[in-house]
């Protein structure tokens, strides 16, 4: 992981916004092996709502598919769409959600079941974690308020988070945001430049394990057989990284067009190495964002011209 730059205002703050598993790691309560095993266990036993509805005969396969398609176009939850479409009643949904919740294995449960921690330790650690998180999240939100080009920055954060989930199946959280004079590159950087009314460049910097996990999830979703998934960063993985960025940026431009900005992205590109550092245009700034994932993090950088007063701003949702 990269060191924070001197002017990063603690962009890589110790502690900070993180997932419970990372908190336990940072506190030395568990090791990386225990975390991986517990996360795998959680994935193997927790049932998605669609699968649960299917197994109960509440929805047909066609209806589940239909809801999934709809989900791609909106930010609504699976159950909400199923009710809106008239596939099930609100009452049936509530019942299903209750059942799913009862059966759900949380990370703490998984660690106890796998024998890594006692219930008491988990409960105590979780209480402390929640208190620290509330503080850390409030701090990041305060920093976000001071960042220029809010419309662009908010769209970038929103679309990056959304595509990490939709395409990569990874939940991510905003952990840090800072206006800086340079990028904080990881092993691989994927970027794309955008021309038009609001010219900007988007950089996604990512370490090898996070990149492979993202590529695997995306490739699985397009039907790539398990045995063909690349075990090292190869041309296919680099292609996935570039196309992921292209899709995020396309959606950012789409969002900007709704506010009247006309933009056109150039083809995406990539660079390797932690010393990658494209030069900034005079007067331009780099807004660095860190998103945490359950098993690591990614760094995003937005380079843009100085903020203009007439830019509308939106609140981050």
């Amino acid at each position, binding site marked *: 992981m990269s060191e924070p730059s001197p002017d990063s205002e603690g962009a890589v703050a110790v502690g900070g916004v993180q997932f419970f598993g990372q908190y336990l790691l940072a506190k030395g309560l568990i090791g990386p092996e225990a975390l991986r095993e517990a996360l795998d266990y959680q994935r193997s036993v927790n049932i998605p709502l669609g699968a649960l509805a299917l197994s109960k005969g509440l929805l047909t396969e066609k209806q589940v*598919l239909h809801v*999934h*398609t709809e989900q*791609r176009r909106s930010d609504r939850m699976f159950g909400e769409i199923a009710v809106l479409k008239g596939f099930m009643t609100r009452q049936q949904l509530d019942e299903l959600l209750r059942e799913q919740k009862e059966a759900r294995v949380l990370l703490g449960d998984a660690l106890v079941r796998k024998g890594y921690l006692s219930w008491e330790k988990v409960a105590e650690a979780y209480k402390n974690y929640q208190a620290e998180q509330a503080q850390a999240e409030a701090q990041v939100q305060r920093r976000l308020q001071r960042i220029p080009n809010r419309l662009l920055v908010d769209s970038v954060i929103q679309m990056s988070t959304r*595509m990490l989930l*939709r*395409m990569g199946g990874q939940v991510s959280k905003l952990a840090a945001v800072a206006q800086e004079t340079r990028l904080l590159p990881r092993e691989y950087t994927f970027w794309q430049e955008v021309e038009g009314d609001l010219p900007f460049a988007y950089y996604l910097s990512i370490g090898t394990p996070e990149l492979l996990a993202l590529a695997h999830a*995306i*490739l699985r979703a*397009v*039907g*790539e057989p398990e045995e063909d998934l690349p075990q090292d960063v190869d*041309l*296919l993985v680099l*292609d*996935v990284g*570039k*196309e992921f960025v*292209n*899709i*995020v*940026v*396309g*959606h950012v*431009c*789409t969002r*900007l*067009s*709704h506010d009247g900005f*006309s*933009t*056109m*992205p*150039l*083809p*995406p590109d990539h660079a390797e190495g932690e010393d990658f550092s494209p030069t900034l245009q005079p007067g331009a700034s780099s807004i660095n964002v860190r998103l945490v994932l359950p098993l690591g993090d990614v760094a995003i950088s937005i380079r843009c011209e100085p903020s203009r007063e007439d830019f509308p701003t939106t609140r981050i949702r």
Partner: protein
Amino acid sequence: MAHRVLAVDDSLLMHKAIASTLRDTEFELVAQGKNGEEAVELYVEHRPDLVLMDIVMPKLSGKEALKKILALDPSARVIMISSLGTDDAVTECLQAGARRFVQKPFESQQLLNAMRSVLRHP
């Protein structure tokens, strides 16, 4: 008889996504291109029933390739597949003669529906 499809995208991932969508359907992937120039060449060579066209590509963009193909064959059936759903891009492509616009990331069913609907309305 299978409907012959030309897919053009600079991303290998997207070619995989399209190939897996068309597998075991009434569509046959006859050629794959990775930029707008190849799109035009492959269109002339194969005269496919349907073209799936990306927008952001090196050399020649999908928007330009769309216009060139339609100039050569005004009856060409082209579906744009892009993450770039800006008002400008969608309007420009549809006005130029693209039949549908599918935003990435797409679900297989969504793409197949668009392809079938284009073939139903010649």
